[in-house]
């Protein structure tokens, strides 16, 4: 049986506490929005897994229906979709992202 894209994405999302779907890699982001998402996670000293959607067309398209969200980056914490880079920035600036990571017991300072 072939694994559906949704199952693949679900597997990736569940594979780490924090997962960022982005364009490029944390060292070499290929888009300003992805770059901003990486910068926020780095500031918060969060351990996270990243997925470069540019390397996988199936995930690049599939992630949009998975979350009903049309753009990349997308952040997942403990399997829950949190939002894109605008929401990340708003939450970061309000101190909400830090609070949420603490509340969820996400490892820091890796």
């Amino acid at each position, binding site marked *: 049986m072939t694994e559906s894209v949704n199952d693949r994405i679900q597997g990736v999302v569940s594979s780490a506490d924090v997962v960022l779907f982005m364009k490029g890699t944390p060292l070499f982001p290929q888009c300003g*929005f992805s770059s901003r998402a990486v910068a926020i996670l780095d500031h918060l000293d969060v351990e996270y897994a990243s997925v470069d959607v540019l390397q996988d067309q199936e995930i690049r398209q599939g992630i949009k229906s998975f979350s009903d*969200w*049309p*753009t990349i980056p997308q952040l997942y914490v403990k399997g829950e979709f*949190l*939002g*894109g880079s*605008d*929401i990340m920035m*708003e939450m970061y600036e309000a101190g909400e992202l830090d609070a949420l990571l603490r509340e969820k017991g996400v490892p820091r300072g890796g």
Partner: protein
Amino acid sequence: MAMTSEEIERLIRAGLPDALVEITDLAGDGDHYAARVTSEAFRGKPRVRQHQMVYAALEGRMGGELHALQLTTQAPD
């Protein structure tokens, strides 16, 4: 393909008729915008849902012909 700020505002207000929409052309190239959308329809909804409502109003253009739209949503004070 780029969109004009008027077109973006028109679409958002078609989907959210009470919305106050402020659009800034960030790079002056007609391709990188910031939008601040204020609507009573957002009240009590999580941010993800608020943004999804704006994206729904844009009828699939987001992530396609509209590449870069920095979005801020809020309910009126």
